[in-house]
Structures are given as C-alpha cells and as structure tokens.
C-alpha cells in the first residue's frame, strides 16, 4: 500500500534537509517530499498523521546479537527484529557469535532465509574473521561476502594474534569488507568483570583496565597503516581509545568506530551493588571516559551509535556478579537514551540522525540512510518527547536484561517503515 507521512519534521542530513512537510511512499520507495503533498494523494494511499514528530531515514544498528542459530531461548531473528522495529530500527547487522558461528556461507544463508521469512526489519549478517571465532586461522571470507555478509568480526572475542590480524585486514581488503574488532587484550583484561577503578576496588570485584581496550586499538591502528584496510572499532568505551581514533583519522587512515547508548549514559557506579544487568564488555567506565565518549560523538571522532544488543536469560544473569554473562539488551532503549544527548545540547537533531542512520549506512556501505526519491522507503517516525517507563512487560525482545528497567524515559519510535511496509506502529496507527 502507498503511504503518505503527513505533517512531520523531516530530518535528512544526507541531503541537508530539515523541514516540515509530507513524505510520499509509493510501491516501497520514496516518491517525493514537500509541504501540502497530502492533499493530492489518491484514495488508496494511507495517510499517517505525524504532526509534532520527526521523520528520519530508518535507523540502522551496526551491532546486534540475534542469537539465532543456537541460542533461541535468549532471542531469535523474529523476536530480535520485532524488538528492533519497536526501537525504530529498519535494519540490523547481526553479529556472528551464534552457535554454530557464522563462519561459513551455510550459516549466512540460514540467517538470510530466516530473516526473509520472519524478519520484521532488514538483517545484514556480519561474518566471522576466523574459523570458529578461535582467532587461529582465517574463515572463508570471500564466500561469506558472496553469501551476503556486509562486514567481518569475531565480536565477543578479539583477534589477539597480531600476525593473524594483519592477514585478516589484508584479505578483507581484497573483498572490500570492513573489519570490526572487539578490542580487548585478554591477557590484560584477564577475566575482569568491571572497569578497573575506585568502584571496583570498593566492591572487591576483579577488574580490567581501560588499557586492555586502548592497547589493542593502538596496535590495530598500526596494522591499518600497514595494510590500508577498512577498520571499525566496536563499542568504544574509553577516553584513550577515542584519542587514538581521533589521531588515526587525522593521519588519514580508514578507521571508524561506534559507541553504545549505555556507555554514553552510565558509569561503573551502575555496578557498585553488583547489578548483573549493568555487567557488559567492554565494561561501563568512569565519568571522565563518558565525557570523552560524548565529546568524541560530538566532534565526529565516533561515527555511529550502535546498540550491541546482547540478550541473556535469567540463567545467565541471575547469578553471582563475576559469574554472570556480559551484555545487555538495547534495541528498545537506544532512541530515548540517544535523544537525551540532543536534549542536553551535545548533538543537534541532524547530528543524531546521522550517527544512527547515514553514518552506519556509509561505514558498511549499506543502502538507506537517506530519504531521496527512488530510495527504499525505510523511514522512522520519532516522537522525541513521548514519556514512557521502561518495564519488563513492554519489551518485545525475548530477554529482559536491561539496567534501565523501571526508569522513566523520553522519546520513542511511533512508526517504523521498512520498504514501505509498517514494521512497527504505535497503538494509534494500527488499523
């Protein structure tokens, strides 16, 4: 069905657009934009009134764990993409640490087939760097590319061996795939569950220093200089890492990076009373790191916001802190947390939309991120001031591991449109 999104504030930074008007969608593509266009649509066109809302290119999450195949009790492609749609995302990049891991075309094809059948939003698989994510030998990167992977990563784990990392970068360059690295020197982190600092000392929890992340960022940047391959730092968390990426960009190296909404809004204080929902890797860090992350996001050192949505069940989380699994869900809370950065004046609305849409699309060279005529109609409508309380019952994800449970949040997606179809709509828009 054709759609007319009427009366919203259309923010399309890729085309320098920020104006009120009506957006037309025909046959799944953007057909036009202008003030008063709604008046001239045919009777078969569904008109959706979005006055007071923002209308932006569909949000793209570069970093999601859908858990299928293998851990469907935590999440699967159906529930994960529904959660994504509810969070305003029209596309997610699915990380390969599934069971079995996505290191062969068979798993990639399985993911794409499932997404085509039950996926509520677009799913772009990220393939493995190494076989079995073991960090020993290269996976069939060429085939993964051909099967549909848009990037490679061993996320969850780093590629520890420098020689293998160099070869992976070289090889990925041939297939023009960006390499996404989870930066963590395992010998330095040594199983630490929290950020090394006063909070961990007080809590008596074994901790990992920020240098476990930044030392690997530093090493990898040298390898990027050596190989010239496209390199993306996953979930950057420390001030030092931001400084290193800023310097690398100044050198003209093809380095990009992302940050999660939780690293932008919480410090390690959230773990002071052993709340396993706040336990993640990289860990939440100190106030100075959070400030540096925000500044990095503002000045463009950090290109994108990505959720690192990591569902876990109570079996993994309702245990002693040091034993609990790392990670929190994030698809459905990303938008209000990101909007806080606009409310505090750190980002303009256009900057925010860029970090969540145009920039992710650019980094992985994905379609989307703009609302030009002829573009696929992936659109997110946002009510930036909608007040709601994050509660377990409202999550569409199969898991509930979020430290924001019970918090009052402001801002949410009211409509998520993928290829011209409503992937998610609020109560008032449902027919």
């Amino acid at each position, binding site marked *: 069905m054709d759609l007319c999104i009427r009366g919203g504030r259309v923010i399309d930074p890729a085309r320098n657009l920020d104006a009120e008007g009506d957006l037309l969608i025909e046959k799944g593509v953007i057909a036009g934009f202008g003030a008063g266009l709604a008046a001239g649509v045919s009777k078969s066109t569904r008109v959706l009134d979005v006055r007071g809302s923002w209308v932006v290119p569909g949000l793209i999450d570069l970093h999601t764990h859908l858990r299928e195949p293998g851990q469907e009790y935590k999440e699967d492609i159906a529930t994960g993409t529904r959660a994504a749609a509810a969070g305003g995302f029209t596309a997610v990049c699915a990380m390969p640490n599934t069971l079995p891991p996505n290191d062969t075309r068979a798993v990639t094809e399985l993911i794409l087939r499932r997404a085509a059948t039950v996926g509520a939003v677009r799913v772009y698989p990220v393939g493995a760097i190494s076989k079995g994510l073991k960090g020993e030998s290269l996976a069939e990167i060429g085939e993964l590319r051909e099967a549909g992977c848009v990037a490679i990563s061993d996320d969850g784990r780093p590629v520890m061996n420098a020689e293998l990392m160099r070869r992976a970068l070289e090889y990925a360059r041939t297939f023009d795939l960006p390499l996404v690295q989870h930066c963590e020197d395992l010998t330095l982190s040594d199983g630490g569950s929290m950020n*090394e*600092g*006063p*909070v*961990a*000392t*007080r*809590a*008596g*929890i*074994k*901790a990992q220093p920020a240098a476990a992340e930044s030392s690997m960022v530093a090493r990898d940047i040298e390898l990027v200089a050596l190989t010239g391959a496209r390199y993306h730092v996953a979930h950057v968390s420390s001030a030092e890492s931001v400084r290193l990426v800023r310097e690398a960009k100044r050198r003209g190296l093809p380095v990009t990076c992302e940050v999660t909404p939780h690293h932008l809004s919480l410090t390690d204080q959230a773990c002071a*009373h*052993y709340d396993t929902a706040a336990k993640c890797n990289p860990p939440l860090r100190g106030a100075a790191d959070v400030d540096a992350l925000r500044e990095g996001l503002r000045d463009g050192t950090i290109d994108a916001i990505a959720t690192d949505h990591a569902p876990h069940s109570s079996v993994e989380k*309702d*245990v*002693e*802190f*040091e*034993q609990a699994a790392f990670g929190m869900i994030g698809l459905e809370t990303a938008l209000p947390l990101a909007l806080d950065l606009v409310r505090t004046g750190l980002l303009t609305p256009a900057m925010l939309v860029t970090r969540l849409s145009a920039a992710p699309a650019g980094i992985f060279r994905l379609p989307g991120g703009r609302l030009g005529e002829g573009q696929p109609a992936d659109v997110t409508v946002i009510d930036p001031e909608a007040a709601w309380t994050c509660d377990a019952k409202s999550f569409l994800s199969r898991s509930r591991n979020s430290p924001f449970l019970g918090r009052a949040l402001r801002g949410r997606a009211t409509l998520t449109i993928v290829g011209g179809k409503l992937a998610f709509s609020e109560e008032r828009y449902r027919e």
Partner: protein
Amino acid sequence: MSLFPHRHLLGTETLTAEDLTMLLDLGERFLEIAQRPIKKVPTLRGKTVINLFLEPSTRTRTSFEIAAKRLSADAINISGAASSTVKGETLLDTARNLDAMAPDVVVLRHAQAGAAEMLAGRISARVVNAGDGAHEHPTQALLDCSTIRAHKGRLAGLEVAICGDITHSRVARSNIFALTALGAHVRVAGPRTLLPPGLPEMVEGLGAPLGVHDRIEPAIEGADVIMMLRIQKERIGTGLFPNTREYSRYFGLNDRRLALAKPDAIVMHPGPINRGVEIEPSVADGPQAVILDQVSRGVAIRMAVLYLLAGGETGEN
C-alpha cells in the same frame, strides 16, 4: 542506644561509628560468657542459624558455630564448593531452599564478591557476610577493632598499618572502613602489583585520609598497630609476585622492621599465618603479637552480631 538499625550485616562500609561501637561494646559483654562455668545463655533458644560456607574455612565456621551454640541457638553447617555451574544448583536456588526451612540467620561465606548482598535481597532470613570474595569480612574487622580497643584503650587517633595483598583482601577493605569510621588513621602498604587503584577514595567522607605505600617501612614507622595480611601461595610465581623469598625479604614483618613502630605497638594477623613469609616466627610468637586474642574475641563479636540480628524486629515491637 537502640536496637541495631540494620537488617543484615553485609559489610562495615555502611556502618556508622555508633553501629560499630554498639557491636564492640556488646562484644565485651559476651566475652564474659566464655569465663563462666556454663558457657551458655538461653537468649537465642529456638532460633536457627545456618552457616552456609561455600568457600573452605574451618576457623571462621567454627567460630560462628560456637557463637550460635553459646547463645543456645541451633547451628547447622553446610559446606560446599562454590555453587552454580559446578553442581548445577545456583546460589539462589540453594539459598531459597534453605530459606523455605525458615532459618533466622544465614551466615554466608562465598568466593565471589557481592554474593551476600545478592542473598540479602532475595531470602527472608537475616544475612551475615562471613566473607564474600575480595569484598568484605565484617566480623573480622569487628574483632580486630575489639582487640585493638582492648589493648590500646581507644581507636581514635591510632596509627594503624595494614600490610600485604590489599587487592585480594576482604579483611583489608572491611578494616579500612571500620577503623577510619572509628577515628583511626589507616595506612596500607604492599607491592604495587597488589595495591588496587582508587584506595584513597574508599575513605572519602569517612574520616582521616588513607595513606598508601608501596614499601612497608613508611607504613610501619610510628604505627600503634601493625596488621599483616596473609599472602596466598597461589599468587606467588605469577605476574603478581616472583617468590616467597622476595616477598619476605622486602615485605615481611621481622624484628628489624617491627622496631620502626612505636615500642608498645601490637602485631595482628587474621590467620592462618604463613610463618617466615609475611611474618617472622619471632614476631608472630613475640610479646607484641595479639593474634590469639583476636581469635577469642572472634567468638564474642559473632555472638554480639547473632544476638542483634536474630533478636526479632529492630526498633519498637
């Protein structure tokens, strides 16, 4: 003085000077009972105390057991390897099962920090933390303060040196909080590899600033109390420390170093001692050591804790 205003005893971090003093004063009263012909009072008759020790310990468990029995409570000991994946039953399931049998107090020792706090939120019994990983061991700190007060007459203004593996020590953390809150000046010392970051922040707002040293001589100099911590054998030979010889040579308490402290300084150790490693036998057996006093006060302090927690509702009926 009113009844103890806390439901559980999870640590000394949140105890005020008043709370700590109440516990110490009560401990003095219970010391007497060990001198009676019948070392028992009927106060906690009919109450059940479960000692859930998921990390090995004979002396602390025995101390709690004796404390409960001297108050006429029923003490039940459950030991085991740390829970969860090893046995299949999670800590919470174990605790909930016990809770279903309506104990009045669960005394928990666990290898992981935060375990006691986790239990306290989920079961209806009162929880006493008998040591959770590297986090806290409040009854040890209380008996240490009790011992110091008995020998020195006070805690305020005393210079107390805590030396050893601070990073992995719950005894150090609990003592840092308690001693500072009671007005002592605490200095910690140890090899840099065993000093965690953020130590001075631990006492912010509590009392005198915390001294931090990477050699023990400056910490011991002029000290009224020297508390030596046990170095765990597993840590030797790793990246943390080369060997015991190096440790005892540079960080052990011997007569020469002891002479740097005040002439009437007392020497303490939470036990068990590694003779010849962190403390020389001549010091451990010497006139300034009060290590056995600590043990006898341990039972009295634990009686005070059980009495206050198992004693029904806090405050007015």
